[in-house]
C-alpha cells in the first residue's frame, strides 16, 4: 500500500518525525503471511510549509537519515536509490517533497521575489489579473507587507489565502507545487493520504483543510483510484513563551523605537545569528503583532474545529484529533527558522499513531461518524507513560504501543547478546539449527550479519531512547519511568545484560523462563532456547526479515502483566 504523509507546518513536521521514529521502532501497518509488519508498504513525506529550514525540518531530516541507515543495515543486496528499504519496516522515500506554498508560477522573474502576503495574493499567472484592489477591504497594509517565508505567525487569515492560491496552482503539473507532488503518478494507485497540522497554527490551520479539500475533491471525481484521505488535527498541546517584548497597541513603530529595542534585546537567543538589519526587521514584526499569541490558541482551535464541521469534514475519510488537557510550556521563543527546534512532544507521538491507524486501514468502525478518543481520566499529560498511548488495529490484532516498544527492546537484547556470534556457526547448538544451516560454511555472512545487526540494534536503541527520554533537549511530555525501565534491554553494561539474561534463562528441568521481561503493564516471558528456534524458513532472508520475525513472535507473546498488590 502506498502512503503519503503530508506534514503541514511545524507541528505536522514534528508528527512526521514521530511517525518515522515509530516505523523504525517496528510499529506495523499490515500482516504478511501472518507476520505483523510495515515492510512492503511505502511512504512518501510531503512537507507543506513556507519555512524551508525550520528546526522541525532539520529534526525530520535527521530522523529520515537514521531510518535510511537502519534500513541500509538491515536490507540485502538490493537497494533502490533514494529508497530506504528492507523487510524490517516500510519503504521510505528519503526525498521529502517540499511543497512551498509561496512558490507559485511566475509570469516574470520579479513576481513574488520577496515573499509577502500582498505579492502572493496578487500573483498574476495564467492570465489572472491584479487582485490588489480586492484585498484592501480584507487586509490592512501591514498584513500585506509582512514577510511570510517563515510561516504565517499562527494567523490563519494570512495562511488560508496563501494556501488557497497554492492549492489552485497544484492543478497545473508544471507549477512548482504540481511538480513536487506529481499527482499523475498516483492515478489509479491505491493510496492513503494523511494530512497533519495544528488547528491553532497559521500554516497547519489553513493548510490541512485546503489540501484535504483539494485531494478529497480529486478523489470524488475519480472514485476508481482507491484513494483515502485522512487527517490528524492537533489542538494546542504546547505553548510558546511570549516574545521578548509586546506588540504596539496601535500605529506603526518608529525607527527610534526599533533601534532602542534592538539595543535592549539584540543579544537574546531569539535574535541569535541575525544581522543588524534582520534584527530590525524582527523587532518591527513583533511590534506589529506578527507572532504566535499563546492566549489566542484555544480560541483559534475552536474556530478551526467549527470550520471543519461546517466546510471540510466531508472531504476526509477519517479525522483524528490529538491534544493535551494542559499544554506543555516551551521555554525558548523563536521566530521560526532553524532556531525553532522544539523537542519531540508526546502528543506528536499520539498523532503519529493516528497516522498508523489510518495507514493500517483500521477505520473507526462507523463510516458515518468520526471518533474522538479520549484519554484516561488519570492521565498526566506532562508525564505520560507508554501505556497511556492509544492502540490501533492491524487486521484483527490490536497493537498496544507499550508492547511494541517492549518487543523491540527485548529483540535488541536477544539478537545482540543471546546468539553466540563469536563461535563458528557449525558449533551452534541445536536450538539454533536453522541459523547454523544458514551460516555453516559461510562465516563471512555470519560476521557481516552480526556487524550489521549490531549497528542496526544501536540505531534502534538510539531511536527508542531519543523518543522517550524525558531530557528536555530531546522530548517533552514523558514521565521517564518507561525510558529507565527499557534501558537495561538496550544497554551493553554487563550488569544490565546479566539481569536480563537471568530472566531469559530456563528454569532447571523446565522449559519455562525464569523471569518476565516487563515494561509498564506489559511483559514477555521467553527463554533464549525458544528465541533460537525463530528463523525464517528460507535461507535467503534479509536481516530485516529476520528481525521482523523475532519481533512478531515477541509481540505475540507480550501480555498484560498481573499486578501484584503493592507493586506497580
Amino acid at each position, binding site marked *: 500500500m502506498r502512503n503519503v504523509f503530508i506534514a503541514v507546518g511545524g507541528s505536522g513536521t514534528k508528527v512526521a518525525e514521530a511517525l518515522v521514529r515509530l516505523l523504525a521502532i517496528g510499529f506495523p501497518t499490515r500482516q504478511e503471511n501472518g507476520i505483523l509488519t510495515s515492510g512492503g508498504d511505502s511512504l512518501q513525506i510531503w512537507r507543506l510549509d513556507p519555512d524551508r529550514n525550520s528546526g522541525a525540518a532539520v529534526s525530520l531530516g535527521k530522523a529520515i537519515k537514521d531510518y535510511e541507515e537502519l534500513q541500509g543495515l538491515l536490507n540485502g543486496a538490493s537497494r533502490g536509490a533514494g529508497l530506504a528499504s528492507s523487510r524490517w519496516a516500510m519503504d521510505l522515500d528519503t526525498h521529502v517533497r517540499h511543497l512551498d506554498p509561496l512558490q507559485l508560477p511566475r509570469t516574470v522573474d520579479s513576481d513574488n521575489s520577496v515573499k509577502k502576503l500582498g505579492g502572493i495574493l496578487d500573483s498574476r499567472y495564467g492570465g489572472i489579473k491584479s487582485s490588489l484592489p480586492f484585498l484592501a477591504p480584507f487586509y490592512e497594509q501591514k498584513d500585506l507587507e509582512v514577510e511570510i517565508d517563515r510561516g504565517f505567525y499562527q494567523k490563519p487569515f494570512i495562511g488560508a489565502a496563501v494556501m488557497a492560491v497554492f492549492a489552485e496552482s497544484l492543478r497545473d503539473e508544471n507549477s512548482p507545487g504540481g511538480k513536487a507532488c506529481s499527482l499523475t503518478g498516483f492515478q489509479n494507485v491505491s493510496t492513503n493520504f494523511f494530512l497533519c497540522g495544528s488547528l491553532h497554527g497559521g500554516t497547519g490551520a489553513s493548510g490541512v483543510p485546503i489540501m484535504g479539500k483539494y485531494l478529497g475533491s480529486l478523489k470524488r471525481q475519480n472514485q476508481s483510484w482507491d484513494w483515502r484521505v485522512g487527517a490528524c488535527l492537533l489542538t494546542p498541546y504546547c505553548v510558546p513563551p511570549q516574545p521578548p517584548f509586546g506588540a504596539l497597541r496601535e500605529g506603526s513603530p518608529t525607527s527610534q523605537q526599533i533601534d532602542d529595542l534592538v539595543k535592549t534585546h539584540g543579544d537574546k537567543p531569539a535574535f541569535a545569528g541575525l544581522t543588524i538589519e534582520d534584527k530590525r526587521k524582527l523587532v518591527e514584526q513583533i511590534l506589529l503583532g506578527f507572532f504566535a499569541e499563546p492566549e489566542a490558541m484555544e480560541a483559534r482551535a475552536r474556530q478551526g474545529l467549527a470550520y471543519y464541521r461546517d466546510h471540510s469534514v466531508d472531504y476526509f475519510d477519517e479525522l483524528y484529533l490529538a491534544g493535551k488537557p494542559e499544554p506543555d510550556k516551551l521555554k525558548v521563543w523563536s521566530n521560526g527558522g532553524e532556531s525553532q527546534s522544539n523537542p519531540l512532544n508526546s502528543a506528536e507521538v499520539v498523532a503519529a499513531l493516528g497516522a498508523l491507524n489510518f495507514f493500517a486501514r483500521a477505520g473507526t468502525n462507523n463510516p458515518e461518524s468520526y471518533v474522538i478518543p479520549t484519554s484516561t481520566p488519570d492521565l498526566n499529560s506532562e508525564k505520560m507513560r507508554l501505556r497511556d498511548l492509544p492502540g490501533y488495529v492491524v487486521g484483527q490484532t490490536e497493537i498496544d504501543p507499550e508492547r511494541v516498544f517492549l518487543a523491540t527492546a527485548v529483540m535488541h537484547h536477544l539478537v545482540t547478546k543471546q546468539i553466540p556470534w563469536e563461535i563458528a556457526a557449525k558449533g551452534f*547448538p541445536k536450538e539454533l539449527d536453522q541459523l547454523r544451516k544458514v551460516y555453516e560454511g559461510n562465516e563471512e555472512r555470519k560476521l557481516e550479519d552480526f556487524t550489521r545487526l549490531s549497528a542496526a540494534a544501536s540505531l534502534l536503541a538510539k531511536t527508542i531512547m531519543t523518543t522517550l527520554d524525558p531530557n528536555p533537549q530531546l522530548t517533552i511530555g514523558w514521565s521517564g519511568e518507561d525510558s529507565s525501565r527499557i534501558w537495561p534491554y538496550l544497554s551493553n553494561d554487563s550488569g544490565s545484560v546479566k539481569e536480563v*539474561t537471568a530472566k531469559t534463562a530456563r528454569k532447571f528441568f523446565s522449559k519455562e523462563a525464569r523471569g518476565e521481561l516487563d515494561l509498564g503493564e506489559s511483559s514477555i516471558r521467553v527463554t533464549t532456547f525458544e528465541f533460537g528456534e525463530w528463523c525464517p524458513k528460507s535461507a535467503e532472508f534479509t536481516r530485516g526479515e529476520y528481525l521482523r520475525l523475532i519481533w512478531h513472535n515477541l509481540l505475540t507473546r507480550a501480555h498484560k502483566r498481573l499486578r501484584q498488590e503493592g507493586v506497580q
Partner: protein
Amino acid sequence: MLAFLLQSFDFLQLFLDSCDDEGCEDTALNWVITAVVVAIVVSLLVLVFKWVKKYLAINIVQKAWSRGQTVVLFITGLLPVLVALVIIWYSVRNFFNYVGFGGLLKGIVFSWLLYVVFAFTGHLLSPWRREIL
C-alpha cells in the same frame, strides 16, 4: 591387534625402569592397563561433564561451546589423568619398585595420548563433532 601390541614384551619393557626379577612383565602389563583404564575413565568423565554442562545450560550462549572451550576442557582433563596415575603409582609397591620414575612418566604420556584420542573420538561420535572440526 592393540591388545596384542600392549602385551608384547618389547612394548611393555618401555614402561619399566628395571626388570631384574621374574614377573616384571606382569607389573608392566598392569601399569599399562592402569594407564588405559585411567584414560578411559577420565575421558568419559570429561564427556559426561560437558554433557551435564550443556544439559543444565540455562541459555543458548552457555550451551554453545566454542572449539577453544573444548580444547581447554581437554587440557584440563590431562590433570586428573596425571594425578590418578601418580597416586596409583605411589600406592602400589610393584609400580614404585619396577616401573620407577621413568616408567611413571612414560605411563602418564601414554595415558594422556589415549585420553585425548578417546575424548576426541567421543566428540566425533556425538553431535558435538562440529564443535571441534
